[in-house]
């Protein structure tokens, strides 16, 4: 497959970002390949009302 790109003028005034997080990319420039992967797990037991020693054994994930 042929892929033709013509880069014309790009001029940005201001950029304001709160956060760049968990395998995210903020790029001012050129690139060829970007590979980002992220696993974020808050399991059903992610909110525990329990005693300190009662964190459940890991299961599944």
């Amino acid at each position, binding site marked *: 497959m*042929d892929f033709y790109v013509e880069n014309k*003028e790009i001029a940005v005034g201001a950029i*304001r*970002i709160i*956060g760049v997080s968990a395998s995210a990319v903020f790029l001012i420039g050129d690139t060829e390949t970007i*590979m980002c992967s992220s696993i974020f797990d*808050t399991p059903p037991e*992610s909110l525990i009302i329990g005693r*300190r020693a009662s964190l459940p054994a890991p299961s599944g*994930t």
Partner: protein
Amino acid sequence: MRTSVVGSLKVLAVIFQAVIHVGDTRYIQAKTNAFALQRQIADFEKDEFPLEQFPMFRRPIPRLSPAENVRMVKRDTVPFITVGAVKINAASTSAVVQIGSNVCIDLESRIKHIRQFTPPAGGAAAGAVGAGGMAPVPLAAPGAGR
């Protein structure tokens, strides 16, 4: 590759394997494994939860082959990317902020997030709340922990 022209860059926090890069580079690779356990009372022990015990830190992530059969032809009519001012509050957990060009960025992050609250005094409340309230949590023996 074009030249990036940026008036100003302000970043407040760069944490947990994040990258701020000014200039060109070829390859950026970053990988983070995080276990975020928030306790109502901050009392933790060393190596309390080895990450290997959670399968999500072991399972392979499918990857695309970067060498797809694409022939890219690029023409830079204007060889500049111009940005006035950039302000970023925070970059975190295998994040990349770059002014400049690169060839390949390869990022991976795995985060497990658990919040644990101490039950109210005389606490009848024990168990997992949240998505369906599944999987009852075994209570520690009375007197153990706190």
